[in-house]
């Protein structure tokens, strides 16, 4: 069923589903990203021993976000993919951030 359905999918006028040309980052780039991830993990572990007070969570989340961006852009090839996939992932990230911020409106001010 998939085959003949995809035939007429080609006929529809939109560009959202087109599969982009496969680009692969070189081994060198992959290794660099890997080293970067290890470095960021080391930073997370190191600063967990420092008392940053209420900033501790924010810093940990920022480092985690940077690591996520590395993984989805290079290892999961999003950087080389069609624009529509970037929009999809962007929308998911945005919703996640909004949900997190709204939850923290409770946690931060609950005991005031």
């Amino acid at each position: 069923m998939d085959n003949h359905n995809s035939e007429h999918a080609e006929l529809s006028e939109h560009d959202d589903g087109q599969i982009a040309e496969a680009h692969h980052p070189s081994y060198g780039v992959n290794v660099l990203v890997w080293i970067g991830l290890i470095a960021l993990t080391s930073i997370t572990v190191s600063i967990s021993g420092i008392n940053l007070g209420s900033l501790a969570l924010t810093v940990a989340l920022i480092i985690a976000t940077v690591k996520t961006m590395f993984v989805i852009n290079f290892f999961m090839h999003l950087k080389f993919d069609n624009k529509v996939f970037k929009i999809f992932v962007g929308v998911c990230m945005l919703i996640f951030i909004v949900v997190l911020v709204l939850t923290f409106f409770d946690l931060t001010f609950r005991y005031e």
Partner: protein
Amino acid sequence: MANGTIAVPKKAAEPDFYHVRTKHTGIWSWLLTTDHKRIGLMYLSAMTFFFLAAMTLGVLMRLEMLTPGETIMTAQTYNSFFTLHGVIMIFLFIIPGIGAVFGNFILPIQLGAKDVQFPKLNLMSWYLYMIGGILALFSLFIGTGIADTGWTFYAPYSIRTTTNVSISVFAAFILGFSSILTGLNFLTTIHRLRCPGMTWFRMPLFVWAIYATAWIQVLATPIIGITLLLVILERAFGIGVFDPTLGGDPLLYQHLFWIYSHPAVYIMILPAMGVVSEIIPTFAKKPIFGYVPIAISSLAIALVGYLVWGHHMFSSGISDTSRVIFSLLTFIVALPSGIKVFNWVATLYKGSIEVTAPMLYTLLFIFIFSIGGLTGLTLGALNTDLHLTDTYYVVAHFHYVMFGGMGLIFFASIHYWFPKFYGKMYNEKVAKIAAYWIAIGFNTLYFPMFIMGYLGMPRRYYDYLPEYQIWHVISTVGSWILVSGILIMVFNLVKGIRSGKPTTANPWGGTTLEWTVPSPPPLENFDVIPTVTTGPYDHTKLHQQLRKEYKDQQKTEEGKN
């Protein structure tokens, strides 16, 4: 002609999807099918069973409330009944209902496609749904009894109760997977399988509604999945995420639960709103008023619906700051809902309205759902919510929204697409009588709950003070009227399936693509994939045809004179 369609040739008598020869026969032709129409009908059969089971539990609960104290069941049984009633109705009927049944059957045809993008995944979704459903019912008969937490499974009680919470929670977890896979399938189908000429703003509004819903299913359901797994882990290993005695935060459970379960309210209602946008133009015989605003408002509801979960927690002890923010956001969600209601009413204005059974259910929906929506505003306002929260007012509100919204439109949908499903017609007169009977029963059952809630009757209580009895008696009598109406409707539909009069491809004068294929449709829906040239509700050609028929009739009469 639907969507200004061209190139839909007349078919030779190709067998319909019931009678076409496939690899498997008998029951296996259903259980191993990948045809979206058969899978839709399998969902319909299963849901009818689950709905009638949960309805029976509801009627028994109302009977228990006829008199104060024990009437027909113990307090523990009552707790289990309202939990199971909620779990079955919410997870097995209301959330998947319209999307799984009518989305499966109708959506690919409305797009001009031969099936969904991933037919095998579609069948797998149905199996997951059945496994989840059977597990939920199974929890009745095994272990230490049915969960008594209510369908929300709030921690820390859900962690401490000795009843069968883990199995019920696991059932909901599996049902969540079914929902995610169905959403993924519909999203891909809408992006990839639109027929030539079917641009985004030529899609029927039902498709827009399913599209918005599918996004919520994919993005929100994993959150409830992981939350429910955490409850199981907490019960089994005491990991201390939610249990305050182990350093956990019970409010975190409520946040995570409602981050999914409030958007789930829109998973329930958006497809219903999509069906309304299909039925009204058909029976008002004019194009929908405000196509683009209705389409965009579906997406707006899906988006804003994500941001309002905190209104379920106003009295739980969350911070004042978040209470104010969530209250404000809750009022914003009324805007896109209002856009839809005003556009439906504007479509009816100066229409040539034909009050058939599906249209009657739709008109009842607008009336009843508006009551549900407006009473929601009193619960979204902080001050009135503190008075009304956890009372029967809330029970009345969500039954007006859920049952009056999704439930009535489920009934409307089945009456609207019945001829397409079965190629036969039910008895229209009986269908209308059932609709009026259901409307009377519905309001008699649920409206007194607003009053007793306002007077202070708490929800989920098995016993009550004598001054509430008059309202409980009226409500219980209402449940009998409602159930008899539903049974009349079901018998009429079953009789229609067995011995209804054969119908045509387009008995209602609908303008979307499903009305161009035979009733019931052939296996792959279209011989040649259609090409669409106009929007979905173009009545021009239909009007020209009716005008021609009228003139021909006039000429015939003049000839007679």
